[in-house]
């Protein structure tokens, strides 16, 4: 599902950016991508940190950060270019779009250089040659031997990954279920929704080593070398960057750095990580999530309200051609926003607007949700204003008051009483729905809980924690809003 949405967006983006692409291809000979990176002094790496030991979140000196062998690869590439590495987290699905829209300079996320992907981005040489395994519950060890043992059963794989496509192609009578994050897949396995999870061998090893209830079996997928290799992706046409990165990658291969240094180092994080998996230990992560969720909600309701007032006034504009055009535009906007999913809007603002201005994920999220919320709030306000008796306006106008004063002193104060409950509902809905921005990597509560989950290998506990946290937030908010509502009804 999600994958299709992203493809649709990528398509729109590709159309929008059509001219950009053609100009870059034309300029391939004089490619300045490396010079640009060296000028700004940072190399931004996009990755989906839920795939140990490739990349995952770990608490280092009390701070949560992305570690793993891919990060080590990224560090080496950056160092060899003489710049600093910046790691940006997002869902695996969003990575290539982020690369194409310039949100990141490169993607290292255990990614296979498939022909389909090669059409859209450029890859370096292979820095790691992996293989696939299937993780199963230890109790089932006798039952499943390889990919062919799952007839009539369900296996899972990360959405958009090579494993997912190959699992579909190379099994018969087996249901293949895609999920965005590997921690969700493992949870699915442990709750017996899935009988096996296909993933790369090093990841499988990491999971099995850290969870005594899991075991792994060989996948026996028929794959070419390129299907099991991992490469670094760069934007199409950035030849200079690819050439520079290839030097580092070749060194990594020649000196066997991944197996010698990077994997053992990643393993160490995995070990320290499993020492203390109590939810209390992660209170800081959850607190950060709450903080961001509230920031997003409060800002979005605030800007959404301002937008909503303007939109509702525009929708009620009366008079000449200008007013008609305004009314038509506002109506079209409201209909359009209400007729498209908020998730698509969030991605469109982040990636689409990103073609013009480079906005941070949090800002993009707030903009997108404000734009969305504004459309709904406009309707609440319009409804509230329309519910005020027409006689009120006539009385005010007959006293010589202008339409502006009438609105401000007579209609709006009465409308607010009708609008307030809907506005309160919108606020509470946004506390919950703001979780959508987790897909562009804003560290709100859901995003944070995913980190804690992949950090601790505990599937359910973080979900239970955020469920309670969400409830506390919404319940408190609704109490506070009710208090004001009652106060308002008094006078």
């Amino acid at each position, binding site marked *: 599902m999600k994958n299709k949405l992203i493809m649709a967006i990528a398509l729109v983006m590709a159309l929008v950016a059509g001219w950009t692409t053609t100009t870059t291809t034309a300029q391939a000979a004089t490619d300045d991508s490396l010079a640009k990176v060296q000028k700004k002094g940072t190399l931004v790496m996009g990755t989906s940190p839920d795939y140990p030991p490739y990349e995952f979140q770990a608490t280092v000196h009390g701070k949560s950060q992305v570690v793993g062998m891919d990060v080590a690869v990224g560090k080496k590439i950056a160092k060899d270019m003489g710049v600093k590495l910046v790691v940006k987290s997002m869902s695996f699905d969003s990575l290539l779009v982020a690369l194409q829209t310039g949100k990141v300079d490169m993607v290292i996320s255990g990614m296979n250089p498939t022909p389909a992907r090669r059409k859209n981005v450029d890859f370096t040489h292979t820095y790691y040659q992996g293989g696939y395994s299937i993780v199963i519950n230890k109790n089932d060890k006798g039952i499943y031997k390889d990919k062919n043992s799952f007839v009539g059963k369900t296996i899972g794989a990360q959405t958009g990954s090579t494993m997912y496509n190959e699992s579909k192609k190379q099994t018969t009578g087996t249901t293949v279920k895609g999920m965005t994050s590997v921690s969700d897949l493992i949870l699915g396995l442990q709750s017996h929704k899935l009988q096996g999870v296909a993933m790369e061998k090093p990841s499988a090893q990491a999971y099995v080593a850290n969870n005594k209830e899991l075991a792994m079996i060989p996948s026996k997928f028929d794959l070419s070398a390129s299907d099991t290799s991992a490469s670094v992706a760069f934007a199409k046409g950035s030849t200079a960057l690819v050439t520079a990165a290839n030097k580092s990658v070749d060194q990594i291969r020649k000196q066997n750095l991944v197996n010698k240094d990077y994997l053992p180092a990643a393993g160490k994080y995995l070990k320290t990580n499993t020492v203390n998996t109590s939810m209390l230990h992660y209170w800081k992560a959850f607190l950060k999530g709450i903080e961001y969720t509230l920031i997003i909600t409060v800002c979005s309701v605030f800007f959404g309200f301002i937008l909503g007032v303007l939109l509702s006034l525009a929708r009620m504009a009366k008079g000449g051609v200008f007013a008609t055009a305004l009314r038509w535009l506002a109506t079209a906007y409201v209909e359009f926003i209400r007729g498209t999913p908020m998730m698509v809007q969030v991605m469109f603002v982040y990636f689409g607007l990103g073609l013009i201005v480079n906005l941070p994920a949090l800002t993009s999220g707030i903009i997108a949700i404000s734009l969305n919320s504004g459309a709904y709030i406009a309707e609440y306000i319009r409804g509230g204003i329309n519910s005020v*008796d027409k*006689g*009120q306006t*006539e*009385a*005010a*106008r*007959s*006293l*010589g*008051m*202008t339409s502006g*004063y009438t609105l401000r*002193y*007579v209609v709006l*104060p*009465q409308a607010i*009483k009708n609008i307030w409950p809907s506005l309160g509902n919108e606020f509470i809905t946004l506390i919950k729905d703001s979780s959508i921005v987790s897909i562009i990597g804003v560290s709100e509560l859901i995003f944070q809980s995913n980190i804690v989950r992949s950090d601790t290998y505990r599937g359910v506990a973080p979900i239970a924690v955020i469920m309670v946290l969400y409830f506390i937030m919404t319940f408190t908010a609704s109490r506070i809003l009710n208090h004001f509502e009652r106060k308002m009804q008094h*006078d």
Partner: protein
Amino acid sequence: MTKPIIEVKDLAKNFGDNQVLKNISEQVNPGQVIVVIGPSGGGKSTFLRCLNLLETPTSGEVDFDGQDLTTLDTKKVNTLREQMGMVFQNFNLFPNMTVLENIKLAPMKVKGVSDADATKRAHELLQQVNLDDHADAFPTSLSGGQAQRVAIARALAMDPKVMLFDEPTSALDPEMVGEVLNVMQDLAQQGMTMVVVTHEMGFAKSVADRVWFMADGYIQENNTPEEFFSNPQTERAQDFLSKILM
């Protein structure tokens, strides 16, 4: 001859295909009390609302104090509306404000009168309508008769030259009609120019200078109350009177 304060020339109003007012030409002189009567749906409210441009006339002129309102821009219309108070059948008091605030709002916001002056004037007007003890009440706690008297005070607070009344007693319980009519009668005696749409024939007989009988979008008859009630000229008026006086 005195100059008319309101002069209507060839006034017409359509709602879509529905011709509600068809060519009305009448005038109101300063200090006159005009009572407009006629069958329901005859266009009385529409006519009244065309006088202060709550309804925009389809064609014709509404001259107020020698100025044609239909040619003025919105800003001028607003200032001219101040000079024509209007009282509605359903009072239309602002429910979120006290009686005092209802009266003070327009003078303060529109005319820029100071809070102290507006408060003083509001109390005077409330005394005039016998409601000064209800200054701090909210409209919902008032009876219909009290609410309508507050509405009259509110309109008077702008010191209008003309007062328009659209069936001010039609929504009231019978025992409260008198208190409102008394206030209106006092007002007439003080020399206020008034255009009153009403079904109160007693009020028309004793207070009106002229009675306009309106039906089917025309002023069918313009007469003194004595003549109108004892000797109506048109068949339409005879018919109407025979029905309501039975």
